[in-house]
């Protein structure tokens, strides 16, 4: 079960094509005379996902990961930029067509306790994406539900139970079954395992892996846990304050990362091994999202920052094959000894 490195020809149409996505939220007005402040949640994010491949998105809270997920799911209109699934721009579709197109992309949420309606049976919860698409007779519907429940490792008999009868791991399986029932091509999973216990987390990650091998699904996996995205994804994007600061294969990113922020994330992962002692870290402050500062957004936290960094924002550029980084000092960062994984 090795992941083949498919060489995608440039002519091949990507499953998902996100171009220069910008999202701004307006803050509540604080003064009658000043214009309302704005939060730049996304500042020009470009990404593509080929069929059967997975993109991991990592970053701290406030980096724009979840906004990215909401825009890919067409739950919000972006301020500018486009999201295209199989060549069709989701934000230019008529509402009815978008509704039908939703069968191709589904979402799995973080909290399996909050994302399932406690008053509905499992059969109704799992069938909902199908019933939203159009009428279907009861027997077919129950057949489809039984099918997906088996695929995620649950039994037919579970159909008429309620969510409270299941453990956290089983609930997350139900949420995955609900996403699978429309036979989507893309599943966006926002922190799918962070609410689960370690032993159960491994079961759900294995399931996601198996489903991808079986159905050729693509995932966009949003997580703050680097090891989780490393396990499931072919490509990883590291986000900081609404921008992708580094993007590449897990091997490139973790063996020789090119952005100081990626390195800081890697170094912050505690190692579960004997002889572990605390490595002291310098105090870091988080920059604000609303300031429209000129230079590199990471400069205030970066140990390598110089005047040039504070004046000129670095663009995302190639630092290797299919390895992008937005840092003036990328080469210097890559030359550092690797930040060993845990």
């Amino acid at each position: 079960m090795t992941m083949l490195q498919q060489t995608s020809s440039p002519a091949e149409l990507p499953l998902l094509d996100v171009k220069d996505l910008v999202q701004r939220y307006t803050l509540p007005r604080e003064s009658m005379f000043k214009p309302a402040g704005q939060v730049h949640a996304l500042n020009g994010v470009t990404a593509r996902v080929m069929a059967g491949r997975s993109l991991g998105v990592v970053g701290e809270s406030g980096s724009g990961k979840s906004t990215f997920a909401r825009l890919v799911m067409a739950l919000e209109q972006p301020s500018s930029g486009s999201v295209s699934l199989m060549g069709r721009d989701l934000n230019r579709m008529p509402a009815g067509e978008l509704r039908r197109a939703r069968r191709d992309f589904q979402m799995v949420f973080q909290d399996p306790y909050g994302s399932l309606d406690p008053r509905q049976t499992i059969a109704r919860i799992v069938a909902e994406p199908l019933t939203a698409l159009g009428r279907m007779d009861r027997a077919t519907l129950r057949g489809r539900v039984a099918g997906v429940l088996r695929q995620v490792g649950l039994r037919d008999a579970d159909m008429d139970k309620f969510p409270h009868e299941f453990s956290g791991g089983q609930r997350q399986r139900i949420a995955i079954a609900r996403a699978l029932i429309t036979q989507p091509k893309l599943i966006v999973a926002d922190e799918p395992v962070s609410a689960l216990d370690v032993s159960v987390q491994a079961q759900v990650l294995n399931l996601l892996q198996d489903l991808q091998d079986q159905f050729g699904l693509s995932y966009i996996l949003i997580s703050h846990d680097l090891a989780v995205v490393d396990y499931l994804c072919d490509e990883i994007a590291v986000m900081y304050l609404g921008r992708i600061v580094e993007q590449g294969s897990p091997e490139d990113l973790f063996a020789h990362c090119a952005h100081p922020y990626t390195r800081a994330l890697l170094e912050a992962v505690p190692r579960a091994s004997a002889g572990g002692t605390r490595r002291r870290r310098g105090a870091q402050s988080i920059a604000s999202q609303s300031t429209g500062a000129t230079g590199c957004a990471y400069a205030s936290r970066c140990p390598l920052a110089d005047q040039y960094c504070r004046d000129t924002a670095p663009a995302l550029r190639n630092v290797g094959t299919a390895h992008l980084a937005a840092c003036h000092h990328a080469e210097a960062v890559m030359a550092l000894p690797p930040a060993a994984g845990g």
Partner: protein
Amino acid sequence: MSGSINTPLIEVRDLGIRLNTSRGPAQAVRGVSFSLKRGETLGLVGESGCGKSVTALALMGLLPDSAVVSGSIRLDGSELVGLSDANYGKLRGNRISMIFQEPMTALNPMHTIGRQVAEPLRRHTNCSAAEARKEAIALLDRVGLPDAAKRVDAYPHQFSGGQRQRVTIAMALACQPDVLIADEPTTALDVTIQGQILDLIAGLVAERGMSMILISHDLGVIAENVQRMMVMYGGTVVESGATNAVFTRMGHPYTQGLFRARPRLGARKGTRLQTIAGTVPELADLPSGCTFADRCAIVEDRCRMALPAVVDVSAGHGVRCVRTDVSMAEAVGAVGA
């Protein structure tokens, strides 16, 4: 557990806690014993429902009234089990403090952070409001809150998660406690902020000579932050010892399973994660023998007969398993480098 020369600061002997749950009475904690000397740090690891937080709440005297506590908890030689609420109130926040998991809910949204940090001082010491406020500013400054003097009158919602956790740490430290209990202090925080908060706690523990009990489900956090550790499962301690000894040679099948189940950075692509079969049992229907028996790969009939005794596999490293000969022969040992 460890033969101590000087008297332990906190000593727990055969602690048992029975809780009333919706499914009837449940033995949430059984036979937990440990002792901590001044300045020592102890880690508690386990998944949800293993009894680690209940143990912490018992130390704080914060269990519900219906809970039945057996065994003994001694702080500097004086018994805490059965202590009246009024007397416990004099200890709590004064000699024993706790940092809670959720900085979002641990703070009162209606009071300024300055007032909340000063509250234990006003309650336990005779200082005036002005002195308490001054001390609160000093504490907030010490835990690294920027502009403490200016922000002392701000409300919790005006701070980020990491800053709020700093405020709860300042609250816990206000009266210079002897014992600090940190229950998953960084679970709700980003990995970079987690590092800062753990650094801060480690620095303060060393600086003030406190004893710390750190509760976490993250083996990495435990490995880097405590001298000794206990792994809990189903209300019992299944493995305990010096952190280095446990990570070098894990004895219990559950500890090994937890360790193997973690996704690791840089693991080869396509390798499957090793899972522990089944799910964490509910406290109301724990198996009678070894609590891990139903999920264990090397279970035998005798495992289900009675709760296994603790086997000392090396000095101070105890494993509650009858099959350590098998489990440790194929142990993961130092795989995690």
